[in-house]
């Protein structure tokens, strides 16, 4: 499936910022399930950006602006050809050892409830894939999708206790439980085409990848209970939502800011 | 040179100058309080001292009356007063530590020694009798610092920033002292020409260490016109505005040569310098001395901000 993406992030500052610097993890990798036809990041400072692979294997651009402005707009656009790969991502170049992803973070550290959730699956499944699917199902039973009850700093434990959350919360609970069971798991950001044809909605998405012996990384989307298919475009990964964040920035200047994100994903079915 | 280094050099010498000015002002206030015939305005003397030090608002935010022990303690030691001698010496020394390698050992020893010794002084030990001795000590030490600076430091851009700090501060101080006398004390017109008036003028000169040199220059009794002329336009008077700006202007020219760039602050300095060089006392009085001084202090502040901006002090 050919997917066209337009992703615009705007920061509106209460007071003008004089200097800003951002790390952008906004470049998808070429993998079995996706072929990049064209891809472009457009924002102030992108011409001189330093580019490197971070410790997770993501392509990062470091951009900065020296300006006097009350807004910063980062636009990403591109076209991706997706193919079915049953969620298998395998091993990317520049990747660290998978067992690095056994490290819990502040957002994923488990409590008794997550421990109980994880332990009920311990030794109960014939292989890892079965385990991950069963784990997804348990999380879906316990969690309702709800965009109003959590925010970007909500921990896995808090989300599970509330029983509501968004894709980030589902992913954190999954990751927390996997790591507890000594299964490496990581957080993945990307885009999802909700319907065939035109769609402008919850297209910015997050899911997880877990390590499977012999296959490498395999994707699981605990919100939808499936492995990513041709409707998914993978952007980057990390320990959790914070470390995989597509945009992370610091600016000099007083006052707060307001963030708006618009994502438009179009699929052309041209089979 | 780092912008921060330039900033620290500028503020180090500016704070040393301010410490000295605080000591001078306190000395004048102290003498006034001892002078018979000024009792009509006893409390006002201290108020005017605070005003001359630009400290009135800060002082009265915490104190009801301006009496000698409170004012003395406030100007010398109070931590909540950013311009107390203690805070000036501490700030000077912190700046010096931050740029320890950009100044000479002699400068460091002078500034470090001054702080170490001053920090040992107990406020309660500074009685009225002890005050003059402490004030003399402060003046001596700040003079020693300046001597160490002039004798040892390399004449590069760092030297220029040090000089700018001194003269920016001094010009502000002189203008303020003069303004306080003229604007705050003068309106009581029945006193013009009286003994009290003369005493006040003499104190102003004393605060600028200029009561003797005045005689050499004018060979006349104290007159408002002469004193204003002396403190504003006389280049040979080392605390006059004209003198400060002659230094500032030539220092700015040094910086222009050193970096090969002329910036906004150069034009500001030159403008103020020429105004003073070509100034005429009659014209200044006609336009109003207070207006002139207020305008000058504004310009002097703007110059400080412009130097900081142009040379990346942040």
């Amino acid at each position: 499936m050919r997917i066209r993406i337009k992703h615009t992030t705007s920061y509106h500052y209460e007071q003008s910022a004089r200097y800003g610097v951002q790390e952008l993890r906004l470049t998808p990798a070429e993998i079995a399930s996706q072929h990049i036809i064209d891809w472009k990041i457009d924002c102030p400072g992108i011409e001189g950006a330093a580019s490197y692979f971070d410790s997770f294997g993501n392509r990062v651009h470091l951009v900065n602006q020296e300006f006097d402005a009350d807004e910063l707009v980062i636009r990403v656009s591109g076209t991706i050809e997706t193919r079915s790969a049953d969620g298998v991502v395998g091993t990317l170049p520049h990747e660290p050892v998978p067992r690095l992803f056994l490290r819990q973070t502040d957002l994923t550290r488990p409590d008794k409830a997550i421990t109980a959730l994880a332990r009920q699956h311990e030794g109960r499944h014939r292989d890892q894939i079965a385990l991950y699917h069963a784990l997804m199902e348990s999380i879906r039973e316990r969690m309702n999708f709800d965009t109003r009850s959590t925010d970007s700093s909500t921990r896995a434990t808090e989300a599970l206790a509330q029983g509501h959350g968004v894709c980030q919360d589902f992913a954190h609970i999954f990751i927390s439980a996997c790591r507890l069971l000594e299964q490496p798991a990581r957080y993945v950001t990307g885009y999802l085409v909700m319907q065939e044809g035109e769609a402008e909605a919850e297209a910015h998405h997050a899911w997880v990848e877990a390590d499977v012996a012999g296959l490498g990384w395999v994707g699981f989307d605990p919100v939808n209970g499936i492995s990513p298919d041709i409707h998914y475009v993978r952007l980057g990964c990390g320990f959790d939502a914070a470390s995989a964040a597509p945009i992370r920035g610091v600016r000099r200047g007083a006052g707060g800011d307001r963030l708006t994100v618009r994502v438009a994903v179009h699929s052309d079915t041209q089979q | 040179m780092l912008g921060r280094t330039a900033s620290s050099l500028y503020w180090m010498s500016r704070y040393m100058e301010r410490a000295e000015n605080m000591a001078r002002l306190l000395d004048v206030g102290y003498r006034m309080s001892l002078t018979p015939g000024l009792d009509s305005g006893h409390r006002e003397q201290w108020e005017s001292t605070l005003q001359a030090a630009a400290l009135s608002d800060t002082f009265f935010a915490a104190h009801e009356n301006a009496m000698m022990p409170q004012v003395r303690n406030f100007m010398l030691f109070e931590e909540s007063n950013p311009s107390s001698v203690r805070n000036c010496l501490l700030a000077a020394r912190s700046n010096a530590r931050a740029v320890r390698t950009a100044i000479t050992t002699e400068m460091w020893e002078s500034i470090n020694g001054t702080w170490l010794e001053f920090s040992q002084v107990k406020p309660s030990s500074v009685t009225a009798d002890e005050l003059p001795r402490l004030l003399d000590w402060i003046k001596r030490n700040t003079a020693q610092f300046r001597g160490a600076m002039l004798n040892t430091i390399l004449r590069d851009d760092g030297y220029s920033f040090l000089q700018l700090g001194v003269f920016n501060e001094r010009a502000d101080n002189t203008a303020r002292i003069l303004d306080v006398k003229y604007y705050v004390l003068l309106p009581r017109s029945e006193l013009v020409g009286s003994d009290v008036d003369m005493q006040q003028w003499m104190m102003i000169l004393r605060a600028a260490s200029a009561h003797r040199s005045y005689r050499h220059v004018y060979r006349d009794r104290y007159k408002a016109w002469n004193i204003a002329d002396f403190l504003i336009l006389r280049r040979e008077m080392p605390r006059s505005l004209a003198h400060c700006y002659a230094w500032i202007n030539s220092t700015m020219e040094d910086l222009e040569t050193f970096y090969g760039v002329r910036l906004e602050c150069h034009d500001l300095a030159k403008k103020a310098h020429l105004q003073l060089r070509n100034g005429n006392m009659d014209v200044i009085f006609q336009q109003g001395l207070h207006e002139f001084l207020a305008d000058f202090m504004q310009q002097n502040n703007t110059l400080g901000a412009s130097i900081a901006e142009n040379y990346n002090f942040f």
Partner: protein
Amino acid sequence: MYNKRSDKIFDEMFMQDGTVREPYRTIESWLLEQPRGGLKQKSKDAEAIFRRLGITFAVYGSNETTERLIPFDIIPRIIAAAEWRRLERGIEQRVRALNAFLHDIYHRQEIIRAGRVPEELILKNSAFCPEMMGHDPARGIYSHIIGVDLVRVSENEFYVLEDNLRTPSGVSYMIEDREAMMRLMPELFAKYRVAPVEHYPENLRRTLQSVAPPACKGDPVIAVLTPGIFNSAFFEHSFLADEMGVELCQGDDLFVDDGFVYMRTTRQPKRVDVIYRRVDDDYLDPLTFRKDSTLGVPGLFSAYRAGNVTIVNAPGTGIADDKAVYTYVPQIIEFYTGEKPILNNVPTYNCTNPDERAYVLENLQDLVVKEVHGSGGYGMLVGPASTRKDRAEFTRRIKARPNNYIVQPTLALSTCPTFVEKGIAPRHVDLRPFVLMGDQIRITPGGLTRVALKDGSLVVNSSQGGGTKDTWILED
């Protein structure tokens, strides 16, 4: 004139039978020649020199941060050339192995796969820095400046107490102590051939230049990054910058533009290629590490990963001097060098092992307990000097968090003659030689000898009443 502590303790001046050890012969006769009060005067002169120069360190905890002088002892500690050569070989072996370990840990982790170091110890260790995974620092070097803490217990036995691979401090004292000694006792330098230490800053500069990043063309620009004047080691930061002739910067002085790091100068920004930072990992870059840090430079770590600047020492070197990893250093040396360690580790008990823990709790009065993440002598129990109450407290703590402590036997640290109130007396010492690793390994002959000035005390930390001595390595 001088009574040794006891026969159990090795004294570096006197042997068991009371004869003077070879390196100390000359100084012994010199000490005997000194007029009454002569040493006292020299000691006072030394203090005056240090105070004038402003060599102080900040002490925290009291109401106000105060600056103090570290006491300086005027009797040098002397080590013979042959003794030093062995130490040098051992240190070099150790730092090479630890650097190889860091490279491996931040790449393929072969040592974990080989089962020589437990995976959990590394991957779940807070000193492990995942952000460093896959990064290739210039010349493959992680820890460029290392201070190895050594203690001596007999004629031929040295132990490594700690490998400091993060931002070891104290080198300015090594240099200033020598400077003071040369002023105070020039006649002794005429009698001994003492290896010089004054070239350390020059060697440091060469080391830093040699690890310029790939993007640097031409002469590398170096800067020292300090947390500022309130840092306890600010004097040293300023001293080293001055001696190397480079800028001393704070975080605010640096900024990132187009992926490169620049200094804010009075005019045009100046690009920086190598940053000798004395700011901890956590505070280096709010974009990557602690968000609330104001000491660092936003974007610095990205510039580093992009190969546009070198950070010295690299972030994440703490995993190699972690106290829990310390116990594995002998295996680490064998794994990467194929050799037996030349310098001994202090035998260490692992409290997570029930048998070892039982032994530890039974014998606390003879042992030293250290917190895994403590430093500077804080959070430490020295058994022989402890009270019953202290031991009860540590028993409770060890039981609660056994993996938070390592336990070692109390070592009989050697003593050296030291000038104290009552005259010359033996005091316990350790030694921190400084190692530079760049285009080559450079070990400055000598180092910082720290001396516990309190009679019988084994704690040499300056924050707890320790002083320093000049350390003389004799040339053949």
